[in-house]
């Protein structure tokens, strides 16, 4: 065997290289398979955190009270129970309606029903929402 000792050493180093390549290949395969899963987890987590910040915020009730204050009290019927709101507005001018809608849509509530009707020159609006 000593005749081929150099060949043996070369073969051994080749096998080390083969082993290293196999290690790299395995790590790369594992990385590729894990990458999409990890990236999906990161995306989901970031989305959940962002969505929860929007739709799960605790200040919705206060924000709705501010919407109520946009129109005079006599034009509003307001009934807030827990995390549900039933409200009706009448005799709204187009300007008041616009302002009311734009403010309402900036609050992260889930609108269940919204009914707007023109009555001669004014508008009435009925709203049911939850959060």
């Amino acid at each position, binding site marked *: 065997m000593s005749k081929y000792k150099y*060949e043996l050493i070369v073969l051994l180093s080749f096998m080390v290289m083969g082993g290293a390549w196999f290690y790299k290949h395995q790590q790369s395969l594992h*990385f590729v398979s894990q990458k999409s899963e990890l990236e999906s987890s990161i995306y989901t987590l970031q989305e959940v955190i962002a969505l929860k910040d929007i739709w799960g915020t605790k200040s919705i009730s206060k924000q709705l009270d501010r919407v109520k204050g946009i129109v005079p009290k006599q034009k509003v019927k307001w009934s807030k129970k827990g995390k549900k709101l039933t409200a009706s507005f009448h005799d709204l001018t187009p300007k008041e309606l616009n302002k009311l809608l734009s403010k309402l849509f900036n609050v992260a509530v889930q609108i269940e029903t919204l*009914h*707007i009707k023109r009555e001669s020159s004014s508008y009435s609006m009925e709203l049911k929402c939850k959060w």
Partner: protein
Amino acid sequence: MRNNRELLLVHTSMAPIRSKARIDVMLTPQHYTLKREMIPLKYRHQAQKIAPSLFDGLLEEAEGYAYFVYKEEDAWVFIAYHPETIRSLLQSKGIRLEQVGKIFFAQQAKSKLETPLKLDEKYALSVVESVVSMVPLQCLSQEEHFTTLPKQCSASLGVTLKGAGGEEGILSLPKALGFVAIFLSFATMFIVEGHAYQKEEATQAKRVDALVETMPVLQSKLQRESIFKKYKTIDTQERKKRDSIKQLSKLIFKGVVLTEVSLSPTKVKATFVCDNTKTLQRLLDALKENPSFKLLEKKVDSVQVERVL
């Protein structure tokens, strides 16, 4: 690798051997020419270069000789040998070249031959003036004790004949080292690359952990996906509802009045009244450009549109 080949002293008068075991051979001074010189050289390869010139005029045939050089105490030992003659000698003694590992010279066993070694009935090997020589037994005293050849040669240097078992393989040392260097460099690169993949994966996993830490309820993948689905549905639907109202507001222009809007979780309905047919046509054209709403009902002065959420 440890050499465990047996050492055999080969000389002219020896009987042929029958063993087929692998052996190292030690040649007696009959088969080489030796010069011991005090030359101020540092390296063996330098001594090897000047070896042929030292034997000028000393050798019977100038061609076909090979030279072996090594340092012995303060002096350089130069040995000239004729590979073809040695090959013939070995064959004549029943030794196949394939079974021969290294070939040593008796001079290399000088320290062991301070006590003579009996070769045959006429000669012994002994050291004369620092040179291992063939000495007639008659020249030695009657009470002389003889030594025996060690089973293995302790010298590290020796020569190898072409075709012998101890000959080098396909690759020379520099070539082998070159290949080893290349393969090990690639191996290092692969390991570094593999490690980088591992590190990157760990970094991503750490990011996930850091995000989960901000909201421990999201630890479980199932729970995470369920919460995501819940909020994503709300987000999509609510954005659609708000967008629908925004789209409806774009359809209001001079001569068009929005008379009714009804929004439920599944659809949005709206009714527009126009002051003349021209305005109505304009409204219908605008509706065509807005494919999210479809025309539900068309009257002389009004239209009803719907969008499914």
